[in-house]
């Protein structure tokens, strides 16, 4: 791979800094997201009208609808939004660090590390230990995987492409262990593990939302604080160093943010692949590649993707409640292939 700096791609990108376009687009996305959340709140297996939902939200008193809205739908919707944004930001960070549009938490082994740990948890403890420890073990798996990738890719320094390749190799090994665990555990546990691996928001609770929120609140501002360094690194390591950026330290901080976000998202919602891949691409096309505007837009788009995937899974195949991951990859994968085809002549 060549390390020629990728210059700003179109004239639009440069002019965009002088116009409020990114701000307007992000504001529009916020509105769309809020409207979608309202839509999702009023749809479900139990028929509710929009008025009833608004009433239940405003006056939370013990009716059935209040219970459905407050305890079943709202936490699930909020978790979808949080998980989607976390995955999208994690992807945006990784694509920036690696300077490659194909990088994502899935490709680099973070997701498979979390998945392996979670499936190991299900296979080893099964029903013995409380399911609430599952996120903790998944998060631990993600961190271990990222640390291993870093360690094995270290060779007197760090090149992004070596990190990607090592991540791919490790993912394969961890995927093999996951399969092994599924094969040796009994059928029920295996199916639970499989649904979890595909990515599902089924039975999300308030404590999941509260468990997910701190990770976003900590990691997103931290990665935004590195935005200028990230933009400098996009021009190549040497250019960034010339501009006074401590490339290794910035890369480590950003990597840590990405791992924390992806790990937490996988921990609470399972392996929702392709969100981290496609959300940053869509965001970049809307607001350009400056990291500080890319992150909020990517987060909003990731939230929208997961929200609608979950909504589809909830209401489109009633009475079945299908995992959101099926729809995310069903739409995400072909879209990703299309993106790849479009960007094929760029210098990556």
């Amino acid at each position: 791979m060549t390390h020629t700096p990728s210059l700003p791609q179109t004239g639009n990108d440069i002019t965009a800094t002088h116009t409020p376009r990114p701000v307007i687009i992000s504001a529009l996305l916020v509105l769309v997201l809020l409207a979608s959340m309202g839509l999702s709140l009023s749809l479900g297996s139990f028929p509710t009208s929009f008025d009833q939902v608004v009433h239940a939200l405003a006056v939370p008193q013990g009716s059935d609808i209040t219970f459905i809205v407050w305890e079943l739908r709202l936490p699930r919707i909020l978790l979808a939004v949080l998980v989607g944004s976390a995955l999208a930001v994690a992807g945006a960070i990784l694509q920036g660090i690696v300077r490659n549009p194909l990088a994502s938490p899935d490709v680099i082994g973070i997701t498979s590390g979390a998945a392996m740990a979670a499936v190991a948890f299900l296979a080893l403890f099964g029903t013995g230990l409380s399911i609430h420890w599952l996120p903790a073990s998944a998060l631990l798996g993600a961190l271990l995987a990222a640390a291993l990738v870093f360690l094995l890719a270290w060779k007197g320094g760090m090149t992004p492409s070596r990190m990607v390749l090592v991540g791919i190799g490790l993912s394969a090994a961890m995927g093999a262990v996951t399969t092994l665990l599924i094969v040796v555990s009994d059928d029920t546990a295996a199916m639970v593990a499989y649904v979890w691996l595909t990515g599902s928001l089924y039975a999300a609770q308030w404590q999941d939302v509260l468990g997910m929120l701190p990770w976003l609140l900590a990691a997103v501002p931290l990665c935004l604080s590195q935005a200028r360094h990230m933009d400098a690194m996009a021009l190549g390591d040497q250019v960034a160093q010339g501009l006074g950026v401590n490339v290794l330290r910035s890369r480590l901080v950003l990597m840590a943010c990405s791992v924390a976000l992806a790990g937490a998202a996988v921990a609470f919602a399972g392996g929702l692949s392709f969100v981290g891949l496609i959300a940053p691409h869509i965001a970049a096309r809307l607001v350009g590649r400056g990291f500080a505007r890319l992150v909020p837009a990517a987060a909003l788009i990731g939230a929208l993707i997961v929200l609608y995937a979950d909504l589809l899974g909830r209401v489109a195949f009633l009475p079945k409640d299908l995992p959101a991951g099926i729809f995310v990859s069903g739409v995400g994968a072909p879209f990703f292939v299309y993106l790849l085809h479009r960007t094929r002549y760029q210098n990556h």
Partner: protein
Amino acid sequence: MLNQRVSRIAGLLLGVVLVTAAFAASVMLGTTDIAPPTFVQALVHYDPARVAHIIIVTERLPRAVIAALVGASLAIAGALMQTMTRNPLASPGILGINAGAMFFVVIAVSLLPLHTPAEYVWAALLGALVAACLVVMLSRGRHGELSPLRVVLAGVAVTAMFVSFSQGLLIIDQQSFESVLYWLAGSVSGRELSIVVPLLPFFGGALLLCMLLVRHANALMLGDDIVKGLGMRAGTTKLLLGLVVILLAGSSVALAGMIGFVGLIVPHMARGLFGVDHRWLLPACALLGASLLLLADVASRFLMAPQDVPVGVMTALIGTPFFIYLARRKQV
């Protein structure tokens, strides 16, 4: 490295001995150990009343034959892919060919009334073709060159796509859980010998085509210009070699599911021993690939005994350290 013609021939003969030994181990070792005389007896005078004979003929023998066939095919396919892309990390597993074939097989089995490998091998071939076209299309640069990192990433993305589609299908249609898991994990067990026979023409045809193209493959390694200079067409050569890869990988997946890393590791081992000349490299790949998969299959019986571990898990565990070694060594 074996430079002399004599030492190379000796090396290949040793390879034959290795395959034979691995084959014997595969037939004899397992939950029930079988003595060599019993094996010979079972082949010569099959007695359906004896348990050992039934185990040999319905379980062990097909398993060993499939492992040898699939191992050899994947290794040759990997070697050809590494030559064509000039990328040491290329292989049917990494570049998504296996995943494409697997997804189409899963569709054929769960949605269409196709049940034996002879029926759905066409689906596997189509899937392999689709995946190969996708990866080539996605990783080609402006001048038709394949950027090494991009080709790997495109392969991984295509693999992720097909695997997640298969998983989705699995969750919607839980009836096919067992069988889909079989293809996802890669396994050489639970097949009968009669099922393998209709697929032999595919393997045979691919090997024949491969033999005819050995010199072209050698020229390709030196660069497209050399191919042209020798009066061959680089495009046609690549297309035909691609056809060989698709036939080998597709038929392998139809028989045994997704088995990764054999196609990646074996060509490197064979190249280290026999050099880059395809006249020696490809037979060496076939012998080493067959031995590796046979031995991995034997090991998979003991890893978590008495449970059988899918052999694809075994090859991934063996192959990953090697992949990481290659990734670290490569100047990228």
